[in-house]
């Protein structure tokens, strides 16, 4: 199989991984679920959702808190899938932010934690170390996701569906409480 075919064939895994990060960010404090891993990962303030069906093929939710918005949950429950999301990764006092694409798990607009070195060589070495460190956190999560995805797919699918249902209900309740004619 050609590399491009492999990218295309694995796209859904990238989309589901983004969704898994999103779910764990909201439901489990962003933890990876792995023992001894204190890092946390959240979907930040930009999400792009796509679908091949329906009138709207792409939905970009930006600024505010799109990860917890009614628009996002409604779109997900209609079958839209995340294609790209801004992700915030925390470990100790270090923070990485980047956009993660689902198709190739490509990373863009990466912001690394600040470095301490003053000389260019030291700064370069620090940045490479931080890059590797951040990607290791992400790969560890992908590994945890894949294990669950391959070994217990029904459980994971049901967990995701239950999370979506709960998110929709919470948003509906919040919307009902905000009605202007309600005292």
């Amino acid at each position, binding site marked *: 199989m050609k590399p491009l075919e492999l990218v295309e064939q694995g796209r*859904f895994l990238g989309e*589901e*991984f983004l969704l898994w990060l999103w779910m764990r960010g909201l439901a489990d404090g962003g933890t990876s679920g792995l023992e001894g891993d204190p890092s946390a990962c959240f979907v930040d303030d930009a999400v792009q959702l796509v679908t091949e069906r329906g009138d709207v093929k792409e939905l970009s939710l930006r600024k505010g808190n799109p990860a917890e918005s009614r628009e996002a949950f409604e779109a997900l*429950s209609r079958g839209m899938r995340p294609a790209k999301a801004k992700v915030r990764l925390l470990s100790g006092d270090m923070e990485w932010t980047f956009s993660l694409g689902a198709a190739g798990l490509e990373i863009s607009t990466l912001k690394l934690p600040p470095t301490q070195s003053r000389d260019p060589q030291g700064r370069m070495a620090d940045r490479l170390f931080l890059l590797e460190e951040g990607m290791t956190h992400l790969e560890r999560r992908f*590994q945890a996701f894949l294990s669950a995805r391959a070994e217990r797919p029904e459980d994971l699918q049901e967990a995701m569906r239950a999370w979506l249902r709960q998110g929709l209900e919470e948003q509906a309740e919040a919307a009902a409480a905000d009605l202007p004619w309600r005292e």
Partner: protein
Amino acid sequence: MPAALLKAQVDLKLQHLQKEKDLAFIGKEARISLQDEVKAELLRRVLPTPRVAEVAWDLKGGLLWTTASSSQLQSALVGLFIKAFGCELQPLAPLLLAGRLLPHLSVETLLALEPFDLNLESA
């Protein structure tokens, strides 16, 4: 090269050609070949704009990091990499990364995975 500049130059040349040869109309093929000529001429005069993409090669891990984010730059990098080192670069997409991170999972198992149905409206 700015498209507006190219169009203006092509129009100018067309007008010259029409006057010179006393033509009422210039056919599509002649128009296209004129456009190619003008484009080649302009390209010779345009100063190249350098674009820098950083690359870090982890020889032990067999990984290449790059800041080349556009597909054009990436394919240039892939081509140069084959020429320089004889190695073919492959994007570390989900399925390839899965094979790398979980070697105990067989290729068949990974390829047999089906997308989740998360459409609640269809339920």
